[in-house]
Every structure is written in structure tokens, then in C-alpha cells.
């Protein structure tokens, strides 16, 4: 008799549960020491079922094929001067922020999912975490390999891991992930797999990768979509993991809700950087931050939280604030970068008339009134030879670490500013959302490594800007300042000039 082929679900069962065993000579709590201290109660680990029935053999097969496709593109890029295909060199600044800010987080995720793959008591979840750990390492490596091509031709990419640990704006993504990896396993799962991957990551990858495609960046599109195909699996893990926690015990509901509230707000603040990349750094634009927010948070998140309402879960606290701010955040973050371009490893520039038209059209209620006059004033100053650079160091939010430039949700003329006290010291946060997070765990956030405080304390190379920039490994005069007048602009213009045919001599035309 011919042996029957196992169905997908049977095979998955054998390759996950079937390979697990009950410990007999060690206590469960000694093997999994982190499983209970957060207060999460799990009664039946076997109730977990991964919706993607991906087993290790199939995983290797598909991942290998994704890699083959990606590396074919990387070779092609290198062999065909792929850097010339982008719409404009200014576009590359979005890629710089990506490798400086996001790629190191992929590596952090790799490490921490390996931790979860060891420490979660359920076999099904451990297998999913193991695959995700390998995925995240792959994302980190493929991003470095792909973007290394641009490093041969553009500035600001050369020492991204060093910069990630030191630069003021990169402490925003770094501290976000440090916060997650220093939490317990279930908070991490809720923070990264659910709040970030499921609820918010589409805002990072989807419009941004589509934007890369629209701007001729074949490299970023390819690693982006290659990573994103794994991301769909991670998102599903996040949704099912949260559902599993909620179904296991009613006492888990308020704990999970607290984490959803916290990590929604943390993720939303982090993504304000992406909002700026989308609205300001893509020469050809796909959609505005505000439109992306509507599609990927308001529509998709609305359906999600309506579904979770049966467990007693509501929309994240301050989601209404995020919605009300969507016409403001990207402009405010761009303004921060414009103020401090002398200290950044990305360029900024004058927002030209065509771009102003687009912003006015996409933000009819906010842009012309609040931001356009500011940009016009900056343009006048720059044209008069007095380009405005801010010489003061900004106050940073103790939680999200973004310079305090966001405004009150009902008053775009007033900076939003909250003060909390802890053991006789004052701490400042940028919003009700960040203040609540601080006040819930002040012992954690008083330890924040705030770049501005560190400069003032003398821990960042010296007391002058050039000394600090040296400590950052910023190649001064190339990585920083405006795009106009940069070596990158000069080189790009020379390349573009070389593409035009030389003027026909008059005789040849006759």
C-alpha cells in the first residue's frame, strides 16, 4: 500500500507539538524562569495554533528562494550602475535614515526572538519565534548587503552601527527597541509582534517600499518586499499571540490592554520619522503620511479593534490624538531636521514650489496656515546667505526621545510639554501618551540615555559641535548640512550632466 501524504495541518502538528516533550527531572519554572513574573496566566499552551502551517523544511525552501531572487537583483544593481536609476540624490536620504535607524533594530529583533524561542513555554510559539529570529537576521543582512552598493557613491551610510548608538535622532529608534527587549517575554510579544508588526509596521514598509519603487530604487524595493513577505507571517503571529493571551485568562485582559496602549503610542511616535520620510524625502510621492495613516491605521486598525472588542479590548488610548495630529507631525519632524541638519548624517533642503503645492493639496487644513509661511521664511533667509541653523540643543522627551517640537493637539501654536516628578527630580515628556508611560514605570525611564543630556555632561567627545560630530563619526561637510552645496549634489549633477548628449554642432544639424 502506498503511504498517504500528510496534510499540511497534520505535518505542522508533527513538526511542532510532536517534537516537544514534558520535562520529568527539572521543574517547569526552572526551565522557563521568565514565564510568570509579568502576571500573565496561561492554562493550556496546546491551545495555541499557528495559522501559518509553516514547518522548518518548507521554511528553508521558501527563504532560500527569496534569497536567490534578492541576490540576483543585488548583482544586477552592482553590474548596471543601479545608483543612477533613482529619481534624485535627495531620495537617498530616506535610505540613509533606514539603514541608520531601522536595520540595527532588525538585529535587535533577531536577538530577542531567539530569547523568546528559548523561553516561551509553548512549543508552537517557540517554533514561530525561532523562525522569526532567523528572519530578522536575514533582514538585517540583506539590508546591509543591498544598501552597501549606495555606500560606494553616497555619504552618511559608512558607519551606521556606530551612529545608531550615538546620534541624537537615532536614539529614538534605539531606545524604542531597548525598551521592548528589557521587558518581559509577553510584553515584548505584545509590543513588537502585535502593536508594532501588526498594527503599525505597514506604515513603515508598505508605502515606503512602494515609494522606493516609484523613485527607481530597485534595491530597497527588493529587500523591502523580501522582508515584508516574512512580515506578513510576523503580523499574524502578533495577532494570534494577543488573541491567545486574551482567551487564556480574563485576568490577562487589563495587562494586555496596558501594553497595547503603551506600545501603540511608542510606535506611533517612532513612526513620525517615517511620516517625514514619506512627505519630504521622496521626490516622487506615492501617498501622504495622512493618507497612509487613514488606510493602514484607521481602516485596518478599526477592523482589528472591532474584532478584539469581544475580549474587552478597546482601541489604544490616545489613538484619537494620533488621528487629530495627522496633519501636523510630518511637518514638525521635518522642521526639527531642518533646524539641526548641521548635526545630522542626512541632508535637508528648501521645500520647492512644486513640493509646496503637493503639501498644500494633501494637507488642506494645516499646511498653508501653519507650515508654508515657515518654509518661505527659511527660504528667504537662505537666499540672503543666512540659512538658519539652530545653535541651541533641544530638550528631549524622556520617553520617545524626540526633541520637544510637537504641539498641543488643539493648538498648533503651542509646544506640547508635560512635567512629572520622581524622587524630587523633574522629568519632561512631549505628550499625555509619553507622560503616562513615564509615570507608569518611572524607575525604567529615569535611566534613559538622552543624547542632549549626555552632550552637556561631557560624555560625547567634547563641548563643541565639531568634537561631538567627530564622536558621532559624521564626516563633516559631506554627511551633514543642506543637500544644496553638498559633495553629493555636485556628484549627482555631474552624473546627470554626463547623461545628456553633447549639444549638436550646427553643421551636423543641417
Amino acid at each position, binding site marked *: 500500500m502506498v503511504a498517504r501524504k500528510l496534510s499540511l495541518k497534520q505535518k505542522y502538528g508533527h513538526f511542532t507539538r510532536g517534537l516537544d516533550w514534558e520535562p520529568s527531572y527539572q521543574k517547569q519554572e526552572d526551565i522557563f524562569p521568565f514565564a510568570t513574573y509579568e502576571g500573565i496566566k496561561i492554562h493550556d499552551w496546546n491551545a495555541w495554533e499557528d495559522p501559518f502551517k509553516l514547518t522548518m523544511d518548507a521554511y528553508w525552501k521558501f527563504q532560500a528562494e527569496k534569497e536567490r531572487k534578492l541576490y540576483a537583483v543585488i548583482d544586477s544593481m552592482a553590474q548596471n550602475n543601479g545608483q543612477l536609476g533613482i529619481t534624485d540624490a535627495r531620495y537617498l536620504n530616506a535610505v540613509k535614515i533606514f539603514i541608520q535607524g531601522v536595520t540595527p533594530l532588525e538585529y535587535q529583533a533577531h536577538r530577542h526572538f531567539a530569547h523568546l524561542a528559548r523561553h516561551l513555554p509553548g512549543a508552537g510559539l517557540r517554533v514561530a519565534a525561532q523562525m522569526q529570529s532567523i528572519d530578522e537576521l536575514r533582514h538585517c543582512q540583506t539590508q546591509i548587503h543591498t544598501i552597501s552598493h549606495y555606500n560606494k557613491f553616497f555619504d552618511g551610510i559608512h558607519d551606521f552601527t556606530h551612529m545608531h548608538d550615538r546620534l541624537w535622532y537615532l536614539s529614538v529608534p534605539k531606545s524604542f527597541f531597548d525598551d521592548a527587549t528589557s521587558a518581559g517575554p509577553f510584553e515584548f510579544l505584545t509590543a513588537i509582534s502585535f502593536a508594532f508588526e501588526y498594527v503599525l509596521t505597514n506604515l513603515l514598509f508598505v508605502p515606503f517600499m512602494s515609494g522606493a519603487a516609484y523613485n527607481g530604487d530597485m534595491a530597497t524595493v527588493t529587500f523591502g*518586499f523580501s522582508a515584508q513577505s516574512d512580515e506578513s507571517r510576523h503580523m499574524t503571529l502578533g495577532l494570534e499571540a494577543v488573541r491567545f493571551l486574551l482567551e487564556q485568562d480574563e485576568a490577562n485582559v487589563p495587562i494586555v490592554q496596558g501594553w497595547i496602549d503603551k506600545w501603540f503610542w511608542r510606535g506611533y511616535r517612532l513612526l513620525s520619522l517615517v511620516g517625514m520620510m514619506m512627505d519630504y524625502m521622496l521626490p516622487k510621492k506615492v501617498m501622504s503620511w495622512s493618507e497612509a495613516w487613514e488606510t493602514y491605521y484607521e481602516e485596518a486598525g478599526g477592523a482589528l479593534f472591532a474584532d478584539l472588542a469581544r475580549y474587552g479590548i478597546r482601541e489604544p488610548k490616545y489613538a484619537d490624538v494620533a488621528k487629530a495630529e495627522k496633519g501636523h507631525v510630518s511637518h514638525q519632524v521635518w522642521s526639527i531636521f531642518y533646524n539641526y541638519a548641521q548635526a545630522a548624517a542626512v541632508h535637508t533642503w528648501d521645500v520647492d514650489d512644486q513640493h509646496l503645492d503637493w503639501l498644500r493639496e494633501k494637507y488642506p487644513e494645516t499646511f498653508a496656515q501653519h507650515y508654508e509661511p515657515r518654509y518661505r521664511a527659511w527660504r528667504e533667509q537662505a537666499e540672503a546667505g543666512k540659512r538658519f541653523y539652530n545653535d541651541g540643543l533641544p530638550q528631549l522627551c524622556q520617553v520617545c526621545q524626540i526633541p520637544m517640537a510637537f504641539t498641543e493637539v488643539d493648538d498648533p501654536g503651542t509646544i506640547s510639554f508635560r512635567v512629572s516628578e520622581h524622587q524630587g527630580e523633574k522629568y519632561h515628556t512631549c505628550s499625555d501618551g509619553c507622560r503616562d508611560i513615564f509615570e507608569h514605570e518611572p524607575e525604567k525611564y529615569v535611566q534613559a540615555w538622552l543624547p542632549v543630556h549626555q552632550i552637556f555632561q561631557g560624555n560625547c567627545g567634547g563641548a563643541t559641535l565639531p568634537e561631538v560630530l567627530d564622536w558621532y563619526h559624521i564626516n563633516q561637510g559631506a554627511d551633514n548640512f543642506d543637500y544644496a552645496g553638498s559633495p553629493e549634489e555636485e556628484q549627482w549633477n555631474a552624473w546627470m550632466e554626463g547623461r545628456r548628449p553633447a549639444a549638436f554642432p550646427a553643421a551636423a544639424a543641417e
Partner: protein
Amino acid sequence: MSRPVSITLQNSQDGIAIANAILADNPEAQRKSFPAMTKIDCPGRLSILADSVSERLGREWDPQEIHMSVISLSGSVDEDDGSFTLFWR
């Protein structure tokens, strides 16, 4: 009104065939086109049928190959040997 589920696919050979199969097999599905990708929204539930995709590709298509083409999704997932389904409970 049932809540929408959604899938975003690469505009690759396989991705385009999958998108066309979804639109043919799920009458309420709606397509939105973006550079390099296609987003399909559908109220309540959406299924990708392996036979329908195989017919369009001219080869056997295994639902697990969805991993090669998907960019993002919204909804709960159910996967078996003949189909891949998104739904809200």
C-alpha cells in the same frame, strides 16, 4: 457591514496571477493599484483558491507559495492544502 479583510501583493508574475484569481473568485473584492504592489480589500472574508491560481499560472501552485508574493495582510489567516483564507471571526 462586515469588516474588511485585506491583502497586499507584489506586482510579480505570481502576485498578479494571485490577485486576478482573488478578484475572479471573490465577487466583492476590490483592487487598489500602487507602484510595485496591489492591495485587495474585501468585506468579511477573502479566499485564494489554489486551483484558480494554478490555472492562471499554467502550473501547480501550492498555497504555501503565498509566502513568495505577499507584502501585507489584515485579518485572521486559515491555511490548508487547497486554499488560503483571510477572515474576521
